């Protein structure tokens, strides 16, 4: 019923190749964007925007980055947190040392620097595959953490390693309130998500998937493995870098290396595994699951704080969260995005299942 496609004719190749070929999907997406751009900033509290939506969007962006590398190009990486750190520190140093560059330019350059670092650490991927590549990217994570912790130049000479991010001005407009931060984050995430969606549908994205599915066959049909893998590393690290910069500038408003530790790399990996490998939608679903669900459990549990001991609430959060991860991996090992795909396919055929 929801998906009655009768009467939707595609009369040109462009219509057939649109991002959302089904009209209902198109309208649904427009509705989501309207909610995000208009409804949320106008009608929700600073808490929802600043503490739930901003981290959700930033981690979603970061997850898209890792999904491009791991989900689309098949290169397992445990260094994603490190690449986010590169973006964060690059943005900080650019903003402080070269304040002439507008902040959006700073984010883009920070992303490019992260991309360059990603390419360097992606070089071994031509020879190393699978779990062994995970180990070399793990080395990248440790190396990057070590560099930022031990060379005071990157932290402007402060010993405490924690820095306040400078204030931001976009086109002459000072970003001050939580709403400003939310809209800035949302704008960047929307643009980059659209870019990612189109990238994975393009020749580049198809080359990534060919490498992922069988690199020898891909090479035989004329895809250059090194260049394809390195572009995946570059694009992935660019997304990670921008997400890392936003994480420091728009969410924490402070920068320190412990915010990008190895645990974050695992967190992003869990996001894409639970959300769905090789899916842009899955990146956001996974981010929502990992970032918002524990907070949701915690808030709900606190409504019973008269009856339940506080230490039990804390552990209940971990237990319920862990239980749900196992549950979803058993029910749908291909992630939440596949769950949605299955539901959608059924809805399109409904009420005639065959």
């Amino acid at each position, binding site marked *: 019923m929801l998906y009655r496609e009768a009467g939707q004719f595609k009369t040109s190749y462009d219509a057939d190749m649109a991002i959302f070929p089904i009209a209902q999907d198109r309208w649904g997406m427009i509705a989501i964007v309207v909610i995000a751009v208009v409804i949320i900033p106008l009608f929700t509290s*600073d*808490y929802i925007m*600043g*503490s*739930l939506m901003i*981290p959700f969007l930033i981690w979603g962006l970061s997850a898209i980055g890792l999904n491009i590398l791991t989900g689309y190009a098949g290169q397992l990486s445990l260094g994603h947190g490190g690449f986010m750190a590169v973006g964060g520190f690059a943005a900080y140093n650019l903003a402080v040392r070269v304040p002439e560059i507008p902040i959006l330019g700073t984010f883009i350059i920070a992303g490019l620097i992260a991309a360059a670092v990603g390419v360097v650490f992606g070089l071994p991927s031509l020879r190393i595959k699978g779990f062994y590549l995970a180990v070399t990217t793990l080395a990248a994570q440790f190396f990057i953490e070590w560099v930022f*912790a*031990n060379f005071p130049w990157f932290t402007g000479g402060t*010993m*405490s*390693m*924690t820095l*306040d991010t400078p204030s931001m001005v976009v086109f002459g407009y000072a970003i001050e309130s939580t709403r400003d931060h939310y809209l800035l984050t949302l704008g960047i995430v929307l643009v980059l998500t659209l870019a990612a969606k189109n990238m994975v549908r393009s020749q580049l994205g198809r080359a990534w998937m060919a490498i992922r599915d069988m690199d020898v066959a891909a090479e035989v049909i004329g895809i250059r493995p090194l260049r394809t893998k390195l572009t995946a590393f570059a694009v992935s690290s660019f997304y990670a870098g921008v997400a890392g910069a936003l994480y420091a500038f728009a*969410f*924490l*408003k*402070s920068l*320190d290396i*412990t*915010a990008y*530790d190895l645990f974050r790399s695992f967190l992003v990996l869990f996001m894409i595994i639970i959300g769905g490998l090789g899916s842009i939608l899955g990146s956001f679903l996974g981010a929502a699951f990992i970032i918002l669900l524990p*907070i949701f459990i*915690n*808030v*709900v549990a*606190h*409504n*019973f*704080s*008269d009856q339940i*001991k*506080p*230490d039990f*609430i*804390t*552990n209940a*959060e*971990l237990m319920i969260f862990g239980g749900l991860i196992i*549950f979803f991996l058993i*029910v749908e090992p291909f992630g939440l995005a596949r769950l949605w795909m299955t539901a959608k396919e059924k809805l399109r055929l409904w009420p005639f299942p065959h």
Partner: protein
Amino acid sequence: MRLKKLSLSLLAAAMVASIGTPAVAQDKKESDPTKEQFIPFLTYRSGPFAAGGSGTASGGEDYLALLNLRDGGINGIKLVWEECDFGYNTDRGVECYERLKARGLKGAPVIQPWSTGVTYALIERSLKDKIPLVSIGYGRTDATDGRVFPYVFPMITNYWNQSSAKLRYIAQLEGGEDKLEGMKIVNLHLKHPYGNETIPVWNKLAEKFGFEVTHIPVPWPGIDQKSLWLQVRQIQPKYVINRNWGVSCTVPLREAARIGFPRERIIGVWWCGSEEDVIPAGAAAKGYITAAFHAAGRDIPVIQEIFEVVYGQMKGNISAARVGSVYYNRGVVTAIVVTEAIRLAHTKYGVGPIGGEEMQWALENLDITEARIKEIGAEGLMPPTKISCFDHEGGGSVRFQQWDGSKWNMITGWIPPYKDLVREMIEASAAKYAKEKGITPRDCPPA
């Protein structure tokens, strides 16, 4: 397939039900917001630092419970609180702050993050929201300069004063400041904002007294420190400063026992000086010395009263065995400071819920005298503290305690820090911050 459908619909039903419950739960509580004072608690009852987080939060809550049960709150205003567990993660800590800051009639009167990382992340937010950021015994040291940081209160004693007091204690042990010349000291610190906080002050002290300090960073979370202690053995220092946190506090004691470094010459930070830090090390911990800004144990009148009243009515927030432990008492001390400030605010703003701005005035004019401490029943638990607009620390002296294998014993009186030297550094650092942020320091008379 049917099972899958069934479990999915059950899950969906559970989610819908849980969204519906908050309204129900709130209806149940009968409360008058004009007669209630909300106090937020940020804590971590899970993760590698749970021993600290659970002790401090429960101690604070139990003291508030004592005031509620014994006196009916403060001047008839009932104290209510809500916990938010952030697992010592900075991002979750910020989320907790945003969640709790607007609770109560006038919002949260204070915020105590119990984490140096979260303290840093909240400095600008708390200023914007006008909620005093109280960090007792941790946090950003240069915020002691209240002229630049009106809403940050690193009260009772900060890290730099603590470090300099440690050096004065070492000088006492050695028999004079002139004996420090040429001495080797190792600063074994966690590689973390908290661990790095004291590097500048040790460098400065080394320069002044002519000793040699080597900073050895402990990689997070510091469970394996073998290679570091090899380094310590090569350096052969006279003293080792144990500036770790949680599990990484215990490891140095075992490693020192292994290489035969006397535990009497390991001097720990107060976050490495709890029962939870030394008991796992067993006999290796005997003789270990740490700094302290409050006493441990249950024989302090106020702690006994909590035990009798709160735990007598089964209203305690932690297992009764931990009442009187170091972290627990630290929670009680901070709750005393906060409630005393609320009392003071009542005298100026009238009896009722207190908001952040009113609390800022109260904290800045807080004077907890020896006599008042006695009245509370906290003699020996905490030092007298007098805060001013100029000095947001209001104390600075520390004592030293030694582990005898079964309990902590105080082995010194209050040892003053090198306050002038530290104050100079604090002002320089705060002035740098003010310049970066474009803050005009307030005009405060030096106390």
